[in-house]
């Protein structure tokens, strides 16, 4: 939202509700934020149904299996939440810098470096009590990922390098660094045909949330998203960041330290993605290898944009996309749709939600005076 503060449509949407005392008028803004993406989602599902019908499959079957695979059973829910967990964290990597008007798309790189740092910490501390190793992994993951994205922030602030490009290119550098270390200095000699680091040890793994199969990454994600929301909307720091995002010159004139803001926000953003990498190592893979580059960082960009960079909205959006990917398997198995059909749906949703941006403040009955 703040990234587009200069947009006159936004301004109308936020100013108008004060005009009248009616319910719709008072809560019009909030309703808009639920109603418009909701309508966009339904529209996207409708179009996807038509798309699937063109391949001779029944859209009704499609909707049923999507629901069944994503939310229809307790297993499906766990499947969805497991897939959503890393997306919440990687989405924050794009959503936080967006408050400053920066478009960072390098969450994947921070994830890889975070995973590598966390693995290194665990391997260095072998033999220490698991709690200490785990805390060290969290810290190492956050610092590793944080510094990686901070690099993009610093390049932008001090060298004028476009942060979108630099953060994207840093993904490939991160992957090369990871492959270099995993196939060289950090390689476990026993990992013959699948070059990997040594394992961090079963005792140091995070395990699942009791009573479920969902790993602790989900809790990390929820805490991080809520903390990010409070930071952005309920602290002086967050206010300063949004001011700088709205108008960087004005921010400088009122004496804000913009460099510090940019570097700090980029560090926190990268830290979130680094945390996702740490979780992948400590709760899933148990070591670092090329499997970690599974694209969570890139799906996170989609989540952040769909959530309009609101840290709280990231949670339901990540669950939605987790559900879509969870149900994707069932669509392949029951309807014989190719894997790419899930990507088609993601693409359609993305287009609909972005296009629906134009509706904010333009829905008559939600406006103060129409």
């Amino acid at each position, binding site marked *: 939202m703040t990234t587009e503060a200069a947009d006159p449509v936004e301004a109308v949407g936020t100013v108008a509700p004060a005009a009248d005392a009616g319910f719709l008028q008072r809560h019009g803004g909030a309703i808009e934020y639920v109603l418009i993406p909701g309508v966009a989602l*339904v529209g996207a599902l409708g179009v996807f149904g038509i798309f699937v019908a063109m391949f001779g499959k029944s859209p*009704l*079957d499609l*909707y*049923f299996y*999507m*629901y*069944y*695979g994503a*939310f*229809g*059973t*307790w*297993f*499906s*829910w766990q*499947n969805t939440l*497991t*897939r959503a967990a890393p997306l919440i964290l990687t989405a924050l990597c794009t959503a936080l810098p967006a408050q400053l008007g920066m478009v960072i798309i390098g969450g994947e790189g921070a994830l890889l470096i975070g995973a590598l740092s966390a693995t290194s910490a665990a391997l260095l501390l072998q033999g220490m009590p698991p709690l200490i190793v785990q805390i060290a992994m969290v810290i190492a993951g956050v610092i590793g990922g944080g510094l990686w994205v901070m690099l993009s922030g610093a390049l932008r602030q001090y060298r004028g390098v476009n942060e979108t490009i630099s953060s994207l290119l840093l993904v490939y550098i991160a992957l090369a660094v990871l*492959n270099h270390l995993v*196939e060289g200095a950090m390689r476990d000699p026993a990992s*013959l*045909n*699948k*070059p990997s680091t040594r394992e961090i040890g079963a005792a140091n793994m995070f395990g699942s949330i009791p009573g479920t*199969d969902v*790993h602790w990454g989900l809790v990390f994600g929820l805490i991080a998203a809520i903390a990010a929301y409070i930071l952005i909307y309920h602290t002086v720091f967050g206010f300063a960041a949004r001011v700088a995002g709205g108008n960087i010159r004005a921010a400088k004139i009122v004496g804000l330290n913009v460099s510090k803001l940019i570097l700090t926000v980029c560090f926190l953003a990268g830290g979130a993605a680094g945390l996702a990498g740490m979780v*992948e190592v400590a709760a*899933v*893979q*148990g070591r670092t*290898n*090329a*499997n*970690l580059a*599974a*694209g969570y960082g890139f799906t996170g960009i989609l989540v952040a944009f769909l959530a309009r960079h609101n840290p709280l909205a990231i949670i339901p959006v990540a669950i939605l996309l987790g559900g879509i*990917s*969870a149900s994707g*398997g*069932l669509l*392949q*198995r029951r309807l014989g749709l*190719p*894997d790419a059909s899930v990507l088609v749906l993601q693409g359609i949703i993305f287009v609909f939600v972005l296009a629906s941006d134009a509706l904010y403040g333009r829905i008559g009955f939600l406006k103060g005076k129409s």
Partner: protein
Amino acid sequence: MEFGRISRRHLLQGGAALTLGAATGARPSFAAETTIGFIYVGSRDDYGYNQAHAQGAAALKKIPGLKVVEEEKVPETDAVEKTIESMINLDGATLLFPTSFGYYNPHMVKMAKKFPKLHFEHCGGLWSDKDPKNAGSYFGYIDEAQYISGIVAGYSSKSGKLGFVAAKPIPQVLRNINAFALGARLANPKATTQVIFTGDWSMPVKEAEATNSLIDQGVDVLTCHVDGPKTMVENAARRGAMVCGYHVNQSPLAPKAYLTGAEWNWEALYPKFVKMIAAGESIPNFYRGGLKEEIVKTSPYGEAVSAEARKHADDVKAKFLSGDGYAIFKGGLVDNKGKTVIAAGTDRGQKDPELEKMDYLVEGVVGATS
């Protein structure tokens, strides 16, 4: 409990998906027949690794009473664990084939422990006695077929320069390169095999570049070890070079340029496995074999293969099929740096564990492992 969760969701959402779900929920979900799940890391029509497994799955579909469910493009993360569970919980699968190398540890091992009554068969040959008994790992000595390809390539090359597009310098790949190069030297003692590593299993752009670069250097017969040979085969044929295939028969892509190829024979192995399970026999946890055991095969010769080449290749193939077997890696073997890697008088047969650790390129190969 579980249903309570669903119906609460049902009431809360009251959405279209739910209504559809209720309307279509009565469909029969689990058939009485045996369900087998196949999981692929790439697309199943890739003319490569995944298609080879899909052909094996297709052979099972022809057997009455078997139902095959398939899912493609499943990454080597906890996504594959969820796919396995989904096939078990939602489709009732009792035998699973997670076919990608990186699915094994920790993912398939974890699932085999969780579902001790179900069978898991993994492609890669990774089982060790620490792993669960219901988890099997099979693999084929495809270097035997590569050796045959090498012989044919050696006769077919006019320049005496052969090319090999490879993914990573890991033992399995090095073994294929060396077998191909040694085969070529049987046909033409002066033949060289130039290798280019692309760095990963699916890198179409780099594979095309490597193919072009090899041809520019005078190479006129190429083969490869990457997940999808399609890029190399089509590019080489377009440039007028000849090719030996890998994984599956790629002759439909380049009928004139295709000489022969090293193929998996999963369509023979998988029905064998299913029959063994049905008969109550246990499949050895570590199951391996080559041409003789019908786990690998060679593609039919293309029209460009000379009678002399066919004769020599058929003679060697007959030795592989004979009771005594045939050792590709025989004593007095020198690597391409001049170091003796197998002492004179020592024959390393196919099952020799030393070959699993191969880290060299033999004399006649142009290239380096690092």
